[in-house]
């Protein structure tokens, strides 16, 4: 399988590469549009600050490429947030793939939301062999507001979208590469799509 991880300089992608390696797949880093467009599956990672990550995407011309992809694409953490319409972080316009906005948790809870939390209201083949109430590892200060495209939700301050799906595009707020066996199952499901 031709599996590409979009490498635009945002965050720690070694862990994602290793997670696929543990499943027996070689995920290759690439910032080359010609390579990404022909891949079987694409991972869109991201850790860090939204406006500077979007700036890096623009500089490599990947901001216009990603919404046009036809193969299954999985955004992880900030990657998922950048696929939304808009994020309050750095007042940043997103790629508009998911029809929802990203907001900051209020000061009524500890921020970042850090640790293992349950996922609920799961639907989609992405969660095959994963159960309602299973745990995923999350680290984030901003969340995607719940919407029609939610395929999983989590509770922290409010109920928010912890996974999204629109056509061939998938996004997860949690880190499947760090979420033990449940996370590995999700990555396997993505490869099986």
């Amino acid at each position, binding site marked *: 399988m031709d599996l590409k991880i979009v490498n635009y300089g945002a965050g720690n992608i070694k862990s994602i590469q*290793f997670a696929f390696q543990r499943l027996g797949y070689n995920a290759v880093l690439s910032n080359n549009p010609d390579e990404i467009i022909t891949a079987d599956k694409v991972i869109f990672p991201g850790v*860090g600050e939204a406006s500077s990550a979007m700036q890096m995407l623009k500089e490599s011309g990947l901001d216009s490429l990603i919404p046009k992809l036809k193969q299954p694409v999985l955004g992880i953490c900030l990657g998922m947030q950048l696929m939304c319409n808009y994020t309050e972080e750095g007042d940043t316009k997103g790629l508009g793939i998911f029809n929802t906005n990203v907001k900051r948790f209020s000061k009524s809870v500890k921020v970042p*939301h850090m*640790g293992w939390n349950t996922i609920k209201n799961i639907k989609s083949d992405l969660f095959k062999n994963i159960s309602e109430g299973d745990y995923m590892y999350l*680290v984030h200060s901003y969340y995607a507001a719940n919407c029609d495209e939610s395929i999983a939700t989590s509770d922290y301050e409010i109920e928010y979208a912890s996974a999204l799906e629109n056509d061939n595009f998938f996004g997860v707020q949690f880190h499947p590469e*760090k979420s033990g066996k449940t996370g*590995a199952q999700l990555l396997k499901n993505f490869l099986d799509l």
Partner: protein
Amino acid sequence: MLTKRIVPCLDIKDGRTVKGVNFVDLRDAGDPVVLAKQYAELGADELVFLDIAATLENRKTMHDMVLKVAEQVNIPFTVGGGISSVEDVDDLLHCGADKVSINSSAVKRPELINELSKKFGSQCVVVAIDAKQIEGEWFVHLAGGTIPTDIKLFDWAKEIEDRGAGEILFTSMNHDGTKGGFANEALATLSELVNIPIIASGGAGTIQHFADTFKLGKADAALAASVFHFEEISIIELKEELRKQNIEVRL
């Protein structure tokens, strides 16, 4: 609901775990990668690796270890010890560490916290504080708790948060090694004072100590070393008891 985290801590020297690791089932308990995998299997939520002999010479050994842990372990981990610059952190994150923990270097140059959180995001910046209560007042100590300062714990914690840290790892020197329980009063004050997660460290001896630090100390995570390394407390049994006491844990 967000769960409370159980965090085993491994002391590392020259790429090997040091002192006090006695796992009956392991062929090589000195190999941090083997041990880390075992802990992930046993239900640990996160791991901390502390390079206790951090020197320039063994930096590459530490990088190799971090790379191997990232390759084989599927839960998050933090690396601490001898980190004093943006470059140090860049190297460790590139090897696959999820978070780094800084301590003395942050006290000596607090701007480091701002630099790290700006460049890598708050989520990967843990600031560790070693503090000792002297005549009722908590003071920050350096170099593994051996060097006293006149910095007050709660002032420093607030400053750490303001400068952009994502988490505080608080060790009470009065409780560390005693197995008499965590410093819950100070922990609860910290947890009220700052709006970032607090990891409790120092004093774990019994299962009830963990329950107390989550309930009374309002800690978000609890770190321990020897009670886990010597199998005095099994993580699964610990979590089952915590759940019985209505504390959210991942089982």
